[in-house]
């Protein structure tokens, strides 16, 4: 059995909050470079180049890439042979978010009650998704989620008869409705199957997969490619101001579902598709 202390968890989460808000992963940077080289719209290319400048400035001057440094979403996979010492893990994670958002000059965007709307002033609590894995490691993926794109996300409870075509139509509908609001070029996370909440979880998880990595399932990979092509044919383009770069990738995850259902969730992320990954 391996021992991990809550202090280590706090320190790691804090570092991840600051890192994710200032630096994008290489796959996202490469996607932006490629898009800028291929975009045919003059204004679209200009916007993509400004987004490249923005990333450079963010890293060099330590200014968050986007002022909406998001609600902290943490996927934490805990090996079943790990013992956590030093207190309650959830307190440790939230302490990491508190320290990261305060010491890292990140925006505090969380309100305590969704109806009364009083800011918690330290961006806590985080949205935490726990899961168990074999072994003695803890995997952490922190994905701070901005709400410009979160607000444009959807869940569709389709019928089995709607089939593959229905799923594609649902995804395209979500993207078309999002348009300029979701800060395109976007990354489209899709969850198909499971239950109402499982497909939403899958869609969120899908956003943490690198944009240059396609599904391992051949027919899902084909669907990802086909949808990306269709989304980029909408004309929405960078900033929603026209062009061929509306999305960088469509990442689809699937799960078995009920004989009566075909749930589909579409979680849209803007071009600031942040995630920081660590292992303890």
């Amino acid at each position, binding site marked *: 059995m391996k021992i991990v202390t809550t202090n280590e968890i706090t320190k790691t989460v804090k570092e991840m909050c600051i890192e994710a808000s200032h630096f994008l992963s290489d796959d996202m940077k490469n996607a932006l470079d490629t898009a800028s080289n291929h975009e045919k719209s003059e204004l679209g290319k200009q916007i993509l180049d*400004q987004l490249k400048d923005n990333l450079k*400035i963010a890293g060099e001057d330590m*200014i*968050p890439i986007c002022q909406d440094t998001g609600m902290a979403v943490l996927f934490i996979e805990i090996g079943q042979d790990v013992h956590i010492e030093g207190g309650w893990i959830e307190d440790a994670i939230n302490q990491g978010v508190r320290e990261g958002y305060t010491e890292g000059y990140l*925006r505090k965007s969380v309100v305590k009650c969704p109806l009364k709307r009083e800011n918690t002033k330290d961006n806590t609590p985080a949205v935490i998704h726990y899961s168990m894995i074999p072994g003695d490691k803890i995997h952490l993926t922190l994905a701070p989620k901005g709400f410009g794109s979160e607000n444009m996300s959807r869940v569709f409870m389709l019928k089995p008869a709607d089939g593959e075509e229905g799923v594609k139509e649902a995804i395209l509908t979500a993207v078309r409705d999002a348009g300029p609001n979701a800060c395109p070029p976007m990354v489209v996370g899709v969850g198909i199957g499971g239950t109402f909440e499982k497909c939403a979880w899958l869609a969120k998880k899908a956003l943490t997969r690198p944009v240059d990595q396609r599904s391992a399932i051949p027919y899902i990979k084909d669907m990802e490619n086909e949808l990306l092509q269709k989304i980029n044919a909408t004309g929405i383009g960078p900033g929603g101001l*026209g062009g061929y770069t509306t999305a960088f990738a469509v990442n689809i995850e699937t799960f078995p579902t009920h004989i009566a259902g075909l749930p589909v969730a579409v979680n849209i992320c803007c071009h600031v598709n942040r995630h920081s990954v660590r292992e303890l």
Partner: protein
Amino acid sequence: MEKYIEAPILPQDIQELRAGDMVYISGTIYTARDAAHKRMQETLERGGELPLELQNNVIYYMGPSPAREGRAIGSAGPTTASRMDKYAPQLLDLGLKGMIGKGKRSQAVMDAIIRNKAVYFAAIGGAGALLSKSITQSTLIAYDDLGTEAIRKLTVKNFPVIVVIDSLGNNLYETAIEEFQQMKF
């Protein structure tokens, strides 16, 4: 076309702006987003005075990240404008001339823009670090308890925006997309 204008904006400057123009704004603008708009509306309902002068002014829908020492502001990009659609027509009728945000507007806002010969600009969403470089000064002027949602007076120099809806009601989000649309929904 590239244009350089001063804020507050003169009515004659607005009439020359057309959807698609790249505009660089210098001067004074104000920030306000969801919570500040709600409070301004409540103030107007009570017959009270707003904490900012609306006449010929520009509101930037933005809530910045905190400034590091020695800097005017933190990351400072636009937020989604449609959440302010409920409040914008009233402010436009009271003299507001420009809004900076991102994303679509409602028909009611479009009508109020035409009625008041105003303008809606988009700044590049998600480019908050870059945009912060065009803000030279930031002063909190009202609702400081709202944190990032407080109203701030900003001094800007060549702040880059694009005209999305001009005073005649031309809408760049609709026209620009048509040019590149290869597939109809």
